[in-house]
């Protein structure tokens, strides 16, 4: 559908105001298929607002959104999901008391007919499909019959990501994906982001942990006080420069 030269997502001159406060001021950015973009900024820089515009939680006051080259209007979270934009927040969107495969299929359960008349859930099918998508992404979960509440933070994150991928997410937005995780688990999630990218899924990653973002992102977009103050290829910059952009100390080094 999209080649490497058309952005998967393009936002143009997005403005979002809350009363007198301009939370996002004429911000534009693109994300290409398979690309990992780090969205950085201090608290209150407008990262979350921008993301909520893309995921349909907020409506922009000005500006346009293009997805796969076509202008789109995202009125609510379901619109975004239908387009293939999935946002995973810190408080993961999983039902803790349901098991792994029930969560992956939540809202889209597979039903078969018993004796040709009685509809029943097709547990085997859902379990098998879940096993496939998890192994496809290199995720290890001891048993798919485990309830989410018995999994570690990283495993939950992985289940939530696999769920999006199984249902054809083209763009994943991860809000602080590693914040609540131990070191080993952080690594696993970052590896998973790389795997996704290599399989053509675009990822926007929001994180305070610069180190993590530098490890996986191809490109970095920095916001400050609602405005985009810089955009760098990861390999052409360093954490010091980015921190300078985030806090506004460094105005010399050619921010536009």
């Amino acid at each position, binding site marked *: 559908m999209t080649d490497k030269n058309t952005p998967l997502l393009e936002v143009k001159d997005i403005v979002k105001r809350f009363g007198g406060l301009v939370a996002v001021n004429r911000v534009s950015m693109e994300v290409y298929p398979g690309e990992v973009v780090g969205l950085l900024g201090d608290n209150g820089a407008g990262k979350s607002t921008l993301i909520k515009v893309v995921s349909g939680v907020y409506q922009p006051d000005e500006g346009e959104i293009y997805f796969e080259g076509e202008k789109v209007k995202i009125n609510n*979270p*379901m619109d975004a*999901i239908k387009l293939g934009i999935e946002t995973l927040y810190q*408080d*993961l*969107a*999983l*039902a*803790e*008391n*349901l098991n792994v495969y*029930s969560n992956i299929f*939540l*809202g*889209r*359960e597979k*039903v078969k007919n018993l004796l040709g008349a*009685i*509809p*029943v*859930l097709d547990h085997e099918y859902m379990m098998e499909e879940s096993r496939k998508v998890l192994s496809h992404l290199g995720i290890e979960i*001891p*048993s798919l019959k*485990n*309830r989410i509440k*018995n999994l570690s933070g990283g495993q939950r994150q992985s289940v939530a990501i696999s769920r999006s991928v199984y249902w054809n997410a083209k763009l994943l937005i991860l809000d602080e994906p590693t914040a609540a995780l131990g070191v080993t688990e952080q690594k696993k999630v970052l590896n998973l982001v790389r795997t996704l990218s290599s399989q053509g899924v675009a990822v926007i990653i929001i994180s305070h942990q610069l180190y993590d973002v530098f490890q996986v992102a191809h490109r970095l977009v920095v916001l400050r006080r609602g405005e985009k103050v810089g955009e760098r290829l990861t390999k052409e910059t360093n954490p010091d420069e980015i921190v300078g952009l985030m806090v506004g100390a460094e105005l010399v080094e050619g921010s536009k």
Partner: protein
Amino acid sequence: MNQTNLGKVFKSLGSVIGLIGLSLVLSFLTPAFLTVNNILNVLRQVSVISILAAGETFVILTGGIDLSVGSMLGLCGVMLAGTLNRTGSPLLAVLAGLSLGALMGLTNGVLVSKGKLPPFCATLGMMAIARGLAFVYTQGRPISGFPQSFRFFGTGYLGSIPVPIIIALAVFTFAYYVLSQTVFGRYVYSLGSNETATRMSGIKTDYYKTWVYLVSGILAGLAAIVFTARINSGHPAAGEGYELDAIAAVVIGGTSLSGGEGTIIGTFIGALIMGVIRNGLNLVNVDPFWQQVVIGAVIIFAVLADQRTKRS
């Protein structure tokens, strides 16, 4: 992983073990307990409460509560008794009971899902309204004298099994199927686990939430049919306090009041435990006033034990 499975088995068996232990003790204390007749007697006694408790299980699994089931039983009972006396048709009476229950359940559901009322408040209001209307409708006087064809629902037998038991078993079988094998059942559990996640999965949460209260209302109507037929009278005070017995059965059966966790089989066991305790204490001649005390202690003990196993 093995440990969690073992824990799960133990937890679901906890109330079963309690029931078996209780039965063993009682059969030692009195030979009258472990007889076919007495067991059928216990089952018949718990049939009305267990039908209410089945509906209550749906509601509590979503994290809600339905305080109006006892009053709904009362109002449905007098309305169907009135219909029966006026028309002489058991069929119309049954339909009146079920549809009135459905209407009240639907109202509860809409108040909770669309009106965003806390379930406790919505159903507390319905509890008072339904009870009040039952007294208004009857002017406080019971309506009695029903044809045998209607009394069948409460006093009849199919083979050697009393009809109320068959109705209750049918309700539990169907509820088991719905909760464990259907999409609706899945959503009942996911609503109680994480409502936001459920909504974000594209599930119409308001619709399914309304349905659980509707189910509870319909089952209250069904319980009213059995109860009214059995006592041969539509009494405006019928079912008073039954909501608490129904909730107790659900809780003793291991369902969490915060939702998302529990089984319909647990509820059946919970209702049986309460029935066996009442029956057993009667058989060994314990003062009925003390029975309340024992039931209360059992509720507290059951929840304590449940939390213990959950924490480990």
